[in-house]
Every structure is written in structure tokens, then in C-alpha cells.
């Protein structure tokens, strides 16, 4: 059994910010989404951001996750962490910070938090219309889930 912290379990059982942000016609506001993973590898995350165009501020963040406990809790944590930040500030959020927010993740489950950080990047790049270069993998290194390994190749493919 994975040794999950109380914080992980709390956000898993009662996730915050789940769901979609519908595209809007509100003036000065734009909605962007970012996807990582795919159903074939067993982990996937779609992140929705609502951004105030003038200030680059994240007004709202929501997620949809197909994945394990850590994936759901990480997504929930990420959306909590980035609300109110500017996009540049949000880009600095690392998967380690997500894990720290959760009080830690089991070593073998660290990749589940990487997913959150990657989805965020994808959403921001989408928002800015920048094509993303696949970067050669995560800093946390040693234990990458094999399903995530597959998703590395397919990672920029929209599910």
C-alpha cells in the first residue's frame, strides 16, 4: 500500500477545483487548456485556466484527471497553488513544490506530480500560442512510471 499523507488523502477524497472552465465571452478574460498523458498509459490530466489578459493573472484553475490517488491529489493541489499567480509565477511551480504542498508523495509516485507541472506548462504555452519542445525528462529522474514513459512520446498529442 502506498504511504499517502493525510493531505493527499484529503484532496483525493474531496478534490478542489475539479471540472472544466467553459470558454467565455467575458471581455479581458481568456480560457486555455493543457493536456498531458493519455488514457492508454493510465495517467492523464487536463488543466483549464482562466486568465485575466491585462495582468496575466490566473483567475481560476480547474482540472480533470484520469489517474491514481496521487494524480488526483496533485492536480487538486496544483490548481490551489496557482490561483492568483501570474503565468510567469505559475511557470516556476515545480513538481517538487506540488509534492511538498501534499506533505510528500511516495517515491514511486513522484511522476504523478510531474504530470501536473507539465499540464500547466502546456496550458500556458497554448495560451501564448508557443509550440512546446519536448524536453528530455524530469529532474526527479530515477523512478519514472513506465506508463509515463509511453506518454513521454505521445505527450503533446491531444487525447
Amino acid at each position: 500500500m502506498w504511504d499517502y499523507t493525510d493531505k493527499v488523502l484529503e484532496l483525493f477524497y474531496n478534490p478542489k477545483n475539479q471540472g472544466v472552465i467553459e470558454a467565455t465571452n467575458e471581455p479581458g478574460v481568456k480560457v486555455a487548456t493543457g493536456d498531458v498523458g493519455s488514457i492508454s498509459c493510465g495517467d492523464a490530466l487536463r488543466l483549464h485556466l482562466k486568465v485575466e489578459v491585462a495582468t496575466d493573472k490566473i483567475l481560476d484553475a480547474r482540472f480533470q484527471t484520469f489517474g491514481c490517488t496521487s494524480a488526483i491529489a496533485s492536480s487538486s493541489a496544483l490548481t490551489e497553488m496557482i490561483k492568483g499567480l501570474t503565468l510567469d509565477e505559475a511557470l516556476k511551480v515545480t513538481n517538487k513544490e506540488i509534492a511538498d504542498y501534499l506533505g510528500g508523495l511516495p517515491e514511486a509516485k513522484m511522476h504523478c506530480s510531474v504530470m501536473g507541472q507539465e499540464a500547466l506548462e502546456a496550458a500556458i504555452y497554448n495560451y501564448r500560442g508557443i509550440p512546446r519542445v519536448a524536453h528530455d525528462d524530469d529532474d526527479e529522474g530515477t523512478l519514472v512510471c513506465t506508463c509515463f514513459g509511453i506518454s513521454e512520446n505521445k505527450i503533446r498529442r491531444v487525447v
Partner: protein
Amino acid sequence: MQKNCIYLDNNATTKVDPEVIEAMLPYLRDFYGNPSSMHTFGGQLAKAVSTARKQVAALLGAEDSEIVFTSCGTEGDNAAIRAALLAHPDRRHIITSQVEHPAVLNVCKQLESQGYQVTYLSVNHQGQIDLNELEASLTGNTALVTLMYANNETGVIFPIEEIGARVKEYGALFHVDAVQAVGKLPLNMKTSTIDMLTMSGHKIHAPKGIGALYVRRGVRFRPLLIGGHQERGRRAGTENVPGIIGLGKAAELELLHFEEATKRERKLRDRLEQTLLATIPDCEVNGHPTQRLPNTTNIGFKYIEGEAILLHLNKYGICASSGSACTSGSLEPSHVLRAMGLPYTTLHGSIRFSLCRYTTEAEIEQVISVMPGIVEHLRSLSPFKSD
């Protein structure tokens, strides 16, 4: 610590029957001698061990002398495979299937790296092998066919005697991993084609740390664990007397309860399965509808992930297990479900419920009442459902 739960994970391990514990206790407390000793205090245990051997033999329809006590199912599988290869030193080919337990599969993989040729039979969508593929694979070079009686994840049963008849034509040895079949299916070694059969105590309400290997009389057997003369030279190491006594008692109880327990489990399992299929959209049974253990159902819930389902069940005190091996420290989805060619949509969201003779109707109703909500909640989080 959590003491009570709705335990529907009996293919993983089972509760030790209180009668089994009672039978063992004197051998833990008072009769601690060594059965190989000259003195009465130790030597008297040889008789108790022999009674237990009879009880186990009775469950399998075997003779006492064909039973070798081991420490677990894994040891039995390892020992049987090694022994078969030593019995056929001139043959270098093994046949097994893609859906075996790691205790067989990983031994075969290691043997491949040592120069053996291994055929891994495929299975169809319902988890069944193709007898034609088996026949086409058998040659005069086949030392061993090792297949499971029933699959631990799906409960799917292989047609063991039909397989065995073909194996015998080629003079190969036939080992059957019956860890999940013992106590759940009627077995009779006297009329069987099986040469060696593995069982494990903790799957039939005996304690962990004890198992048995059936070795047909006349089959050349060389031990995996080498040392003293215990078990008539077929398994060295001081006998685990309390464990053996426990296994004997558990075997007796399995035989006693067999008819009534399997009938009850099947009825409860069917009620669980049919109700879940009827009340939850987008789910299906993994495995064969009838060629299946009476206590097992493995259901794939599309668009959601197994571990997440399990943790929600856990909150309700319901113990089940996931087809996905995220459970066991490896993060790959189940090799069994992959071999069955399950679509990705269900591969990651499959849950096994496995019942036992202690399972009650109320427990099943509780699962039936919470599952739809759990699935709905998780699907509401999933990005796929709406696609």
C-alpha cells in the same frame, strides 16, 4: 489498527479459520519439539505431521506420500519447474501462458536467459488459451508444460485435463499452479493427468508461511531446498509443524464446506456482478462468463483508474484489489488483462472482488450500494468521460 472490514480480497489472502488457529496453538505453545528427534517429545510430532499430510492428500484426492510441504505457493511453483527440468535433462523447451502468476512467469523468464526456449501461450478476450496453439507448440523437446488451474485476477479456468491429455502424448511433465483452484474447484489427482500441483495455505484459510506441492508417485523429483532428509528428501529444513497442522486442518475444513460454500459464493458473486453491471454504465466483466471460479469477479469500469476506486472503497472499509499492479509496487497495468487484449479504456480501471465462505449478503449489498456513487464521482473528475 483496522481490525474489521468487508473483506473481498480473498484471492490475495484469506482469514485464518479460528478452528485452524485452535488446532495450531498446542503446537506453537507446548509441542515445540523437532519431529526428527529421537525423544518422544519431538518424535511424537511426526504422527501429527502425518495426519496433516493425510488431510491435505484427501483434499486433492492424492496419496499421503505424494504431498510435500513447502513454505508458500511461490516455493511450490519454483520447485516444481526446477524439478521437471532436472527430470528431463535432455529437453530444453517449456510451455506456459502469458497470464501465469509471477511465481511461474518470472522463473520461466530466468530460464530463457539460461538457454531454455519458452513458449508463452496467448489468451483470447475471455482469458482462454487455444488448444490448437498448445498442440502446435508441443514437441519432443518439451520438458514441461506449466499452466495455472485458475487465474488469480480473473478467475478464468483452463481446461486442465484436456491440456494434460495432449501433454502426455509428448512425454512432457505437466505442472499445474492450483493456488487459486484448491478449495474452489473439485480436484482428484487419482484420475488426473497432472504430474505436479502447487497449493498455498493462506489462500484456503490456513496461515501464511505454509504450502504444499503434490508430486505424482513415480515422477522423478529433486528438491529445490537442499539439506536434511525432511519430507523424505524432497524439501529440506526443519518442518514448520504448527503451519503443517494448520494446513491439514484447513484442508479438512475446505472439504467439509466445499459444496455449500462454493454454491453460496457463486450466488453472492453473481448478485454482485449482475447488479453492478445493471446499475453502472460502461462497465463489463473481464474473463469468461462461465469458465470461472465461483468466488471471483473482475469488472472493468471505463474512464477511471483502479487505484482511485480502491481508495474510495477503502474509506467504506471495503477491501478489493485492482487489476492494475500499481498495487504491488510496479506501476504497469496487469499483465493478465493486457494479454487478454482489453481496451485501454478499461485496462486501468479494473477491480477484482474475491469472496470466501465468510462473505455475507449484507457485505455484498454494501458494495452494491456504494459502487455506483464512487464510479460516478471519479468519472466526474475524468477528462475522458465527456469525450
